[in-house]
């Protein structure tokens, strides 16, 4: 785990800006496909949500001009992207790198919250259930994206590792890093 007092890398505006005008539906569709693959491979993502499986979660990277709305479901998990903040039962906001670090076990969610790098509002219980469900699944989004790329996946991994080293964004599971 890295020291959370190190400043979080932010998404360069050159990369973030296009999200203000490009069509969001195809990106949301790709994220939905990824999320459904994750649920199939990690059923604990759903079962640990318990009564909050029908809740909606707004994930707001503060360095991107979009908010991700997650609606968990065992077979019909859905992600949509929004330029205006969507209504949701719980909202978790912070730099994209902090959110990715949370998913990948790089940083502790409570510590990020105590340091005000992460903001939670709405249903605290639902947000906590999601955080705990994700933490237990030991997700590796880099590996999952590579897995979706079929035979090219193995070729993709070194580029994901390189991107992680260059940007400082936690793109792989903490325990998987060399």
């Amino acid at each position, binding site marked *: 785990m890295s020291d959370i007092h190190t400043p979080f890398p932010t998404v360069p505006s050159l990369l973030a800006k296009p999200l203000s005008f490009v069509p969001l539906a195809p990106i949301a569709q790709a994220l939905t496909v990824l999320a459904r693959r994750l649920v199939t491979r990690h059923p604990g993502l759903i079962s640990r*949500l318990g009564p909050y499986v029908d809740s909606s979660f707004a994930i707001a990277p503060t360095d991107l001009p979009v908010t991700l709305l997650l609606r968990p479901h065992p077979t019909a998990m859905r992600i949509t992207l929004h330029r205006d903040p969507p209504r949701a039962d719980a909202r978790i906001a912070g730099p994209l790198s902090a959110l990715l670090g949370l998913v990948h076990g790089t940083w502790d969610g*409570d510590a990020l919250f105590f340091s005000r790098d992460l903001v939670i509002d709405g249903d605290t219980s639902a947000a906590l259930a999601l955080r705990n469900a994700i933490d237990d699944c030991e997700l590796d989004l880099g590996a999952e994206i590579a897995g979706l790329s079929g035979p090219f996946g193995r070729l993709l991994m070194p580029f994901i590792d390189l991107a992680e080293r260059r940007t400082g964004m936690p793109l792989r599971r903490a325990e998987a890093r060399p």
Partner: protein
Amino acid sequence: MMELVCPAGTPAALRAAVDAGAHTIYCGFADETNARNFPGLNFSREELAQGVDYAHRRGAKVLVAINTFPRAGAEGLWHRAVADAETADVDAVILADLGLLAHAAEHHPDLRRHLSVQAAAANPDAINFYATAFGVRRVVLPRVLTVAEITAINREIDVETEVFVFGGLCVMAEGRCSLSSYITGKSPNMNGVCSPPSHVQYVETKGALDARLGGYTIQRNAKDEPAPYPTLCKGCFQSGDMTGHVFEDPSSLDAKDLIPALAKAGVTALKIEGRQRSRAYVAQVVRSFRTAVEAVAAGRPVPPGTLASLTEGQAATTGAYRKTWR
């Protein structure tokens, strides 16, 4: 070497603790039988059995906390938890309730019993009673004692002692505190939740963060101040002319530098708090404390290094071990 007893709220955290060097891991079932009954946390029976297998294969032990107080008429839930823990081949159960201790001693005599901090046994008479009456082999001491008091207690008892060395700090008489129950109707003692998240709300206004519990604002922090988890004991209140943390500052325990003194006091095991925390927290804290207990065992000084960034209030204290009063 002193035994390092480490928290696991999920199977992933259990594996992280074992891999980071925990000698022993404590965890609980996903229901009101344990004092960390938070959403998305804890173990099913199957997950516990798998966790025990993972730990035992690597030489680590697993303890199961069944440390809430059973509701009258619903004792079956707690009795099943003890039986299922034994079936999963755990190394001990951590109990607090007199009736449950009696049940475990009678029906599961071969299952090692530890006394939870929730029992608040803070003197030799109480500890010796639990040892004699229920065969308790280890007691987790409440976080209200000085090192000198722990030394004195250890001279008068024949069971092992375990003390907290890191994590969230509870200053009340544990197992007796009614603050959470007073404001939310739910308590760590009966429901396994202190300040349950279902009653917690954070509201940000012009950069200031209001932390509310049960509808009451109990802490307001300016933009750059660390945020707390809203427990009444660490709330910010007005009392007479004073505005501040009347009971306790929102800081966490870090007694790493006291490990040599605790060893000298006759303490067997050091406990890290934080079953509600992530596997990242578990891995970092366990690694740090494993290095420290190894150093002390080898006669070297405790290695420097702070874990303050992981703590509530971003600040650490030695708590009651070095007791000072306002």
